[in-house]
Structures are given as C-alpha cells and as structure tokens.
C-alpha cells in the first residue's frame, strides 16, 4: 500500500479540500491504484536527461526583441527558454475594477469582502 489515510488527509489539507469520510476512503484506494500504475516509470534510466517543462519554447521567440538566435526551432538551453517570449514592457488597457467586481460573489467596491483573516 502506497497511500495511507494520513496521506490523503495531508494532501486534502494542502489542496484546501474538506473531504467527507466516504471520500477519504474512496480516494485512498483510487490514488493507491493510480500511483502503483505510474510506478512503471521507475523501469527507465533517466540519468542525464533534462526535464521537459515546456515543448517548443523556441517557436515563441520574438525575432525583434530576442538575443542572437532567431531560428524557430527547439530551445538550446535553459536561458533561451526563459527569455524566448519576453515582450516589450508597454502599458495596455485591461479589465476595469468595475467589470471584475461585478462578477464577484461579495463585492464591496473597490474590494472583495472575505471572512475575517487577521485576529486583533
């Protein structure tokens, strides 16, 4: 057994989920089965392999603003991936506070009201 009841409760707390008793038991069994299945990844030797967080980052590079390389191909190094999609820092209009507050569950313009957070 990979997943205990305590694991489920710990993860639910991290994820801000308030699970019912039935859910705790159900998720324990299901997560256990899924995590046992994904153990097949341990069969592979992954030493020396770079983790892939994003595919095709090179294709997003702006030829006008980027560094030396402009080819629309796979990124060459981590720095390239990070800088590939930077745009000019120019102001542009976005949604107004009014529009956004209109769809809020408990707006008190210009704020979102929530239960008390800080104890005096």
């Amino acid at each position, binding site marked *: 057994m990979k997943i205990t009841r305590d694991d489920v409760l710990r993860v639910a707390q991290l994820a801000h989920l308030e699970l019912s008793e039935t859910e705790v038991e159900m998720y324990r069994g299901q997560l256990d*089965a899924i995590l046992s299945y994904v153990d097949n990844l341990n069969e592979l030797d992954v030493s020396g392999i770079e983790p*892939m967080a994003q595919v095709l980052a090179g294709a997003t590079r702006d030829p006008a603003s980027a560094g030396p390389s402009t080819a*629309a191909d796979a990124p060459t190094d981590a720095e390239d991936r990070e800088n590939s999609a930077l745009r000019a820092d120019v102001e542009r209009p976005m949604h107004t506070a009014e529009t956004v507050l209109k769809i*809020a*569950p408990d707006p008190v313009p210009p704020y979102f009201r929530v239960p*008390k957070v800080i104890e005096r």
Partner: protein
Amino acid sequence: MSRTLPWTVATIRMALESRKVSARELADDFFARIARRNPELNAYLALSPELAYQQAARVDAAVAKGEPLPPLAGVPIAVKDVLSTTGIPTTCGSKILENYVPPYNATAVERLEAAGAVILGKTNCDEFAMGSSNENSAYGPVRNPVALDRVPGGSSGGSAAAVAAGLAVAALGTDTGGSIRQPGACCGIPAVMPTYGRVSRYGLIAFASSLDRIGPFTTTIADAAAVLSTIAGHDPLDSTSARIDVPSYAHEIEKDIAGLRIGVPEDYFGAGLDPEVREQVQSGIALLQKLGCKRIPLKMPHTDYAIAVYYIIATAEASSNLARYDGVRFGLRVPGATLMDMYRKTREQGFGPEVKRRIMLGTYALSAGYYDAYYLRAQKVRALIFQDFADAFLKCDLIVTPTMPTPAFRLGEKTADPLQMYLADIYTVTGSLAGVPGISVPCGKTSQGLPVGLQIFGSHFGEARMLQASSQFEKAGGFSIAP
C-alpha cells in the same frame, strides 16, 4: 430552404451569395434542430440566440450591400464551455462556475466572430475538461448521437455530439490528452488538435497549461482547414503562442499525397486494441498506401509510459491552475467562519469527484518528498517521448495509429474505475506530451455500426500535411458523414 443540402462552410457561402438562404434563416434552422434534439443529447449547456442573431444580421447586411463576405460568414458554430465568451455563461461543466459570465472572449472565439461565424452556444464537457467520456459533467452526461446508449467521448463530448448530430456546422473543442480526437473518433467526425502554440490559449480556462490546445470539430476536412486557418496564429495575449506563419490550409489540402512516408508504430497495435478497430485502421492504412503513400514500420519505445507521464504532469499542472477557485473573486462561494473554512467548503461543494481526484493526485506528486520521484521523473520521461517523435519524423512525414483502443463504450461502463478510464487515452496522450498536431479522421465502422477513428500525427507545425493526407483519405474513402 433545402434540408437535403449538407451545410458546410462552402455550401453556406454559396447559398448566402446566391441569396438562397439568409444567415438569419440558417440560425433559425439550427436553433430549431437544437430544440428538437438537445433534450435527448444534452450537447449544449447554454444557447446565445441574441448574439447569434446580431451576428447573422451583420452577415445579411453585408450580403444585401454586396460586400465581400468574411471567411466563415453565417457559419453556425458551437463552443466548448471551457472557452470564455463575453456575456455568455461559461461553466467548464462545473458547479463552481455555475453562475460565471466572463467579461472577455477567448482569442479563438474573438477570431471566429471576426470571421463572420454565428456562435450558437456553449457545449457540455467533462468538468474542467477532465475525462474521457463526458460523464464527469456537473450538468449530466452527453449521449452519442450515433448510439444513444454510448458515450460521445470526452472531454469535448458536447462539441463532437453537436456537430455529428447536425446541431452545428463546426464546434471548438479543447484537447489536453485526447479530448478533441477521442470524441471525434467516438462520434465519427474529423477532429483536429493543432500543434502546441499554434492556436492562442488566451481565454481558455486552464486545465494543464503545457498541454492544453484548442481545435475544431467539423464534418469535412475542408471545413476543418477553414476553421483552423481562422483561429491559428500568434497572439500577443498568449506568451506560448508561436510566431510561425500559418499556411493556406485550404490550398494545401488539395495536393496529391503520392510519395508521402507514413510511419506506423507497431507499439500502437499491441494488446488491448479491439480486433474490429484494428481491422478498420489497417484497412485505412492500406487505403493510404493505395493513394501512393509509403508505409514505414516504426518503433516508439516509450509509448507504454505515456499514460503515467501524462497523469502526473496534467494533474500537477491542474492542482496549481485550479487553486484559483477559492470563492473570493468569481464563481461559487460557500460561506465559512474563517477564510480557510470558506476556501475548503467552496472547493468541497464546487468540485466534482474526478476534479478532486486529479487535484489530490497532482498535489501529492508536487508535495515535499515526492516531487523528484513523480513530477521531475515524469518531466524527464516526457523528454524521451518527445524524442521518440523527433526520431520518427526523421524517417517519415506522418504517423498513423488508431485514435482509440475501442469504439465508444456504454454510459456507466467505466465510471467505477478511474484507472480504466485513463487507459482509454493510451494512443492520444503521446502526441499531447510531444506537442505535435494530431487529427482523428473517420475510418469506417464496426459491425455494430460504431465509428472508428484513424489518428494521424504531423510534425510540429505540420498541420498542412496532416490535413492534406486526411483530405485525400476522405475523398478516397468516402467516410465523411453529412448531418
């Protein structure tokens, strides 16, 4: 108005230009069809007649003045309910967004409207696009119009069912692990997942940001080409959208495919593949060979690991993306004594079982002590799967596989066992992880009359060739359905 004429982008244009039909009459016709069939299918969650008729009036005014019509003028289109639409409720199939009305349009929707399309409404889907059968919607399952006791596939089941049943000429879906291609196969219509970055994700409510894509369902490849041309291309509002020119797909699909090398990975034809699906797909490959394609046997050695990699990466990203549903700024709020109490009650009541399961799995995979063993390892194996595709495309121009291991299954058949449901994505998740484009093309039916899908992967940004082969296949096989 002729009911015998199957409506496509091209036939609508001709009918509008020759004044045989108006955009308003077309909208009337489609809303009437929806009123008849939707109670049974549950494909649409919301209709937007007011906006649709405003758009139809603009198209009819352009016709009356003899102005040139935009590329999708008057074409009735449905939009999956995970795409933001100004003034039209957008629920993601979730109770947590039951009353959410976005203040902005997704770029893909914005581009459809600018091209003259008439948006009919929003289609049902698995909650937050998490599912392979459309049974995870908080608003009830969608039924497959081909066989009402079967699932339409998921997660874009409502979009696929709407197009297959003739309740829209085209529909937008989203694909994270197969959610466009798999319902396309289940419902017997073409379904396109473009390259990652080809279509802007701005306004697509995020599930797994490194995997999510937007693409069309249509009844013909020519229509798929027309819709994709409209929504593709760089968007400054999505930093992952590619700065790569969009070719004229309409022009490319007319080209002959003799001499194209089609790779057939033997790893996709192993245990678990339904014999009738295998037979149909093999006949499909034989047809491509008859059209002059050269069959190249391939090995893609990391295929067996794709489901595991996918369900770690997708759930990890989802657990982070779905943290925003906390009851503070939009959507459902369940009152609580403290802020934390409000967060937890809102999320507990707002999310359905599959979404919670994935949030839990993703949170676990990212949590202290497990990150390296699960998330980091999965990202490394993702690189190996990416490399499988890169190696394959040195030897071939396209890769051809089944879309699904089985035809559409029965409603309720797999709901008790989430892992069995995940395994239905076995042939689609590989391309999702590699970022390549993929299409499911109708490829005959089983003896029970259930549609089979042939999946064709192209190389990165190689949609044109993928659509070209699909179009020639469609013409030679006559598999395309008319609503």
